[in-house]
């Protein structure tokens, strides 16, 4: 079952289409990363899902409810943390928790205390006096203590120094492991997300480039290095390369490419057919490398289409 489903979700700001015909499904219990470069439409998508913006066309269902009809009953099961959200900065951490608590019937005081300790948050300090990392933790705490069914986070690591970012990720991983929630996290900090995500959706220029489990994604992407023998014969020019081979480059006797449809059984043969007598090494790729490859490819495609 999907916690989030969108169909042709589109949002226009004047002539600019921030999100274009997005069809996205986030399975229940997954930790889904919504990745994309700046301006890809990640934050807009999250705001559409949280009913902070209304779609220009298309629709989204969150927890089985049309996003435009999300009300208190649904928000009691949703946690939303955003770098842009204006928290009541005049409150102390404790006052923020005291304020939020009565709105949630499922608020877990024990979890609140546990997270407070785990996040090392000073309860009596005003939010306005907290560092950015602490502030995100406080926001996260106020969104986790009622054990939401869905936790949506919009660029939670933005502007944080590496140490704090690492702390926050660790905390999230610990919390995710303990809970039974679905997490949707939008970020361009792929390395941080990679550690916890199990489903990846990639947005580019408002369009969905891909959406699949992280494991499957990493399984099908390989950075391939092909060393050609001196007398090796290359595939005749004009023979089309497989569509899944991206960013192919040749220098002297070496060919490098990214295979986006790698298969342990079939790819080896394919390489050998195209580059007979060559030695082939296929390296697994990180999400970051996959993301960069796809982003560059999409940008080149877009330039080509524009040309």
């Amino acid at each position: 079952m999907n916690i989030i489903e969108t169909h042709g979700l589109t949002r226009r700001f004047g002539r600019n289409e921030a999100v274009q015909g997005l069809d996205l499904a986030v399975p229940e219990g997954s930790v889904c990363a919504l990745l994309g470069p700046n301006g890809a439409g990640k934050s807009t998508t999250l705001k559409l899902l949280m009913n902070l913006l209304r779609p220009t066309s298309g629709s989204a269902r969150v927890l089985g409810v049309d996003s435009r009809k999300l009300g208190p009953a649904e928000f009691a099961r949703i946690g939303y943390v955003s770098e842009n959200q204006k928290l009541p900065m005049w409150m102390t951490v404790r006052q923020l928790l005291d304020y939020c608590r009565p709105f949630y019937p499922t608020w877990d005081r024990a979890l609140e205390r546990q997270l407070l300790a785990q996040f090392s948050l000073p309860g009596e300090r005003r939010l306005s006096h907290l560092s950015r990392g602490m502030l995100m933790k406080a926001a996260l705490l106020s969104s986790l203590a009622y054990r939401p069914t869905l936790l949506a986070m919009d660029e939670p690591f933005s502007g944080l120094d590496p140490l704090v970012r690492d702390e926050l990720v660790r905390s999230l991983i610990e919390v995710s492991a303990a809970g039974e929630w679905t997490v949707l996290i939008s970020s361009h900090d792929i390395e941080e997300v990679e550690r916890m995500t199990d489903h990846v959706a990639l947005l580019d220029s408002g369009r969905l480039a891909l959406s699949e489990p992280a494991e499957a994604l990493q399984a099908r992407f390989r950075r391939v290095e092909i060393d050609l023998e001196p007398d090796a014969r290359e595939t005749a020019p004009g023979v089309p390369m497989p569509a899944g081979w991206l960013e192919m480059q040749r220098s002297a006797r070496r060919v490098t490419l990214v295979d986006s449809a790698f298969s342990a059984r079939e790819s080896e043969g394919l390489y050998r057919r195209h580059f007979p007598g060559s030695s082939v090494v296929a390296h697994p790729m990180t999400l970051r490398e996959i993301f960069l490859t796809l982003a560059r490819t999409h940008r080149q495609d877009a330039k080509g289409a524009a040309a």
Partner: protein
Amino acid sequence: MKLTLHIIRKDLRRLGSVLVLWALVYLAEFVAGARLLHEGIGNMYQFDRYQIFTWIMVGLKYAIGYLLTAALIHEDPLVGTTAFWPTRPISGARLLGAKAGTCLIVFGLFPIAMALPWWLYCGYGLHELPLAAIDIGGSQALPVLIGVLVASLTGTLGRFLAGTLGVLVFVPVALWCFAEGHPAVTEDTFAVASWPWPHLMRYAPLAGLVVIAHQFLTRRLARSLAVLVSLAAAVLLACALVPVNLPPSGRQPQDVLAGLPVDDRIAFDFKEAFEGTVNLPNGAPQALYRETFSIRNKPKDLTVHFTKTRFEWEWPDGTRLNPTSYGAAYGSARFHPPRPVMDPPWDWYARVRMLARGGRHRSDATFGPFYGESDGSVWEFYQEALPEMGARLRSGPASLQVQFEGYFESWEALPPLALEEGSHLENGAEGLRISRIRWDGDRRQLDVDEIEHHPDYTVVFNPWTDISARWFTAVNRARGEAAASARGYSVALRIDTVAIAFRRIELRVPHHMEGDKWVQTDSPDWFNGAILERSLERRVSRFKGNVTVSPFAPRPDPDQAP
């Protein structure tokens, strides 16, 4: 409800520091008022300084109050996508309820609580306290409504201030343009047939409330702005198209009179009617009709006040014409007592009373002194109406039916006040003290400090409007003579419904008739042993009267004869 109260508590905590500042302004005002009352008003310069101080405090109070509305609404903004509350289990309706509750506390209960010690200090009792509470709460309503409206359509203080500037500039200009373009609206007091402001005052706040509710419930700014523009246009259109049926009485609610006994002995007689025309300042001709009536069996020592006069003309074919069908015609009552002889008895009082306090669309007034022996009262009514009303009246013989309603008042003398410095008089929340007496030629000048519960804000700018309706009379019982006061200098200030006035009143040595000559009484001995008297109006009974005039045949107005 519990969660609504939870939000209210949060908002109050948030506004706490500003509320303290607000409270300090109230406190400063009350301290100044208490000092003024305790030490006496002293002199004009001193009073002026107090007056300027209270104006500054009033300005501060309204400015802080107005900014409080922005702080309150922007605490949970309704515009933008970064607010905290929309992604929490808080509905727009709950937030609206909470904000309304906070407004009630902050702009209703808080000022009342702050003013209560001051009111008690000023001697307010069970009668004045509710009225003062309504008054102080009501005075906040319009700025709060505008503030909440602008704040709910803006997300930041900068935009709020820009929106306020827009309201302050655009709305008066738009209304002025509307009034200029509206043919029936003139500056003339009598052209009341379709005066639009009563509609505006009635519907504009409702339209504002609708837009606020819409924005809270939907958070759709563009649509709320569209609703605002549409409702503003609808209100202006309604004002332009729907004639106003002005209430027959302004500030004299009928239910106040309901408890009075009915005096059914009196009767009205028609005397004569005149017909003419009058041009308004904009050049438009208006039909002018004057009718005079006399009253029989009026109880002695009572003055007459009309609350309602209804004129209806009827033709033989059954058609009727009345102020409702042509807008409310203006009615004025003039009291023409016989010219007095200036040898009044010692209990002679001079009085002035304005019923409608200069209201724009109705200013019924009964002028002149009342003399106990007088019973030959004559009232003159006149109507100025649209030209078609005049044409209809000239179209054929008609009968006129007139209904009168009103009440009688007696003048009750308050306990006398010794004509000496420091003597004072108290009557509930009202108080009066003579702070200084001095001679100025043949006149005796009194400095009088006065305090009164006064609901009319204009008293600060025009202290004579009502507070001075009670004239003073110096009475020399030994000589059987009275000296009426003349207007001197008067200033007033207002601290939360309490009007404090400083008056300089002149008592002229009286004249009396000897044969056919006015003779001035010797001064200064006349004031020795004299006392100062004031009188108070009390409603004693009400009346209704009907007169039929058939046929209604007005003569050409002799005042307009070429």
